[in-house]
């Protein structure tokens, strides 16, 4: 876990120095002031994982992040946003995206059953008063099994 936290701080430092940074400068820049060898270990690990790159600069190596933070965030989100079949997915996502028509019909199905509304949920006007929810086609397949 210690090394994991250090990986995070090292990545943050790399993102803060897009022009590249030497391992010893990076170690000095970190608030926990770890040993340079420790930082080098982490940098090698990060390079192996494809998160950092290095290039020779004289007798040392200049380290950079392999991509900007936003690009990595986008990649971490993509696994859950991908429209690929769930069978291949490496993660268990909560729910896939539906088409706009189905989304409207589902909202209508929720508001169709006011008897089920629990008190305290009325502060969510986005669900109970969307115009398309009121006009959506309810004759389709969106109907409770027992109704």
């Amino acid at each position, binding site marked *: 876990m210690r090394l994991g936290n250090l990986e995070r701080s090292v990545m943050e430092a790399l993102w803060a120095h897009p022009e590249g940074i030497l391992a010893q400068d990076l170690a000095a820049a970190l608030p926990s002031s770890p040993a340079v060898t420790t930082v080098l270990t982490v940098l090698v690990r990060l390079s192996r994982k494809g998160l950092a790159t290095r290039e020779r600069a004289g007798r040392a190596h200049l380290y950079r992040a392999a991509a900007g933070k936003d690009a990595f*965030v986008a990649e971490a989100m993509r696994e859950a946003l991908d429209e690929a079949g769930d*069978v291949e997915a490496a993660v268990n996502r*909560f729910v896939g995206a539906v088409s706009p028509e189905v989304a409207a019909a589902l909202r209508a199905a*929720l508001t169709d*059953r006011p008897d089920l509304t629990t008190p305290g949920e009325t502060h969510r006007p986005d669900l109970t008063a969307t115009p398309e929810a009121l006009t959506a086609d309810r004759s389709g397949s969106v109907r409770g*099994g*027992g*109704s």
Partner: protein
Amino acid sequence: MTFWLVVTGVALLPVVFGGRVASALAGAEWARRHPRAALVLWQAIALAGGLGAVGVGLVAAVAPLAAAFPHGMHTFGHQVVDGRGLAGLGPGHNLALAWSAALIAWLVAHTARTAVRTVARQRRQRTLVDILADRIDERDMGVPVDGRGVGLPIDREVYVLPGAEPVAYCVPGWRSRVVLSRGALDLLNPAELRAVLAHERAHARGRHDLFLMPFAALAAAFPWLPVVKAARQAVPVLLEMLADDRARQVSGDRTLARAIVLMAAPKGPEVAFGLADEGVVQRVERLLGTSRGRRWVPAAVYTAALALMSGPLAVLVAPVACVTFWPG
């Protein structure tokens, strides 16, 4: 010999009549009420089909060596050990043997490939989440506390990605990570977030990824087989329903249904394929519906699964049992 062929052949029925059997099962109302039973049946169909297809080849191959299959297997085993290999087998029998061997190799190769690829993607996902996400305590949900590095118990730990789209998932593994995006935290109220987290933790605890893996391997190995196609569509939805059943106990049906509907709304203009339509509609329907399952259904389904498995299991076990109990 004929007896043993029939025994294994029965297990292949769902595969042979795959289209009809599978689509009946995939659309069945009882399956949605009893997802666990339906998943066991799917597993039995897949396992019985695979073992049965291999078994039929073996039974046919060793037919000329003995009257009964187990003795034929023994004779064949002795021949192989003695270096006389395929003696006594005609061309047809060799073909049957080749069928079984090729099938085993094909299945093992695709299972290995699927496992390696999935594990690699999960490792990458874990790396990204560890680097990028803030760890917060489930009980402090909604409060933007950065509990980075705090040793939280795993059942309260939530990883929050700084992304604007609402996203929730779990990266499975021996130390799973439940991940929410900042967008999901903004979209859902605390009760709905609890529902989402209970759902994801059910996936993680139940190791639903391991359940799914063989079906992913089958889908890679036999993508054109109707029964495989049907399983590929039905099994993930049933696993979601299983996780839903855990979450609805925690949060109630309606809160969970609202969370699903809110999270399933199209995330942007470019995402309008609606591939998840059918499964999501089924999940919301069963949460809002009032009908309950019947108690005898799971028992009947488990019996059917056992019946399906009995043939191929007998073919596997018979030669082993013979050697164990009547050596010589």
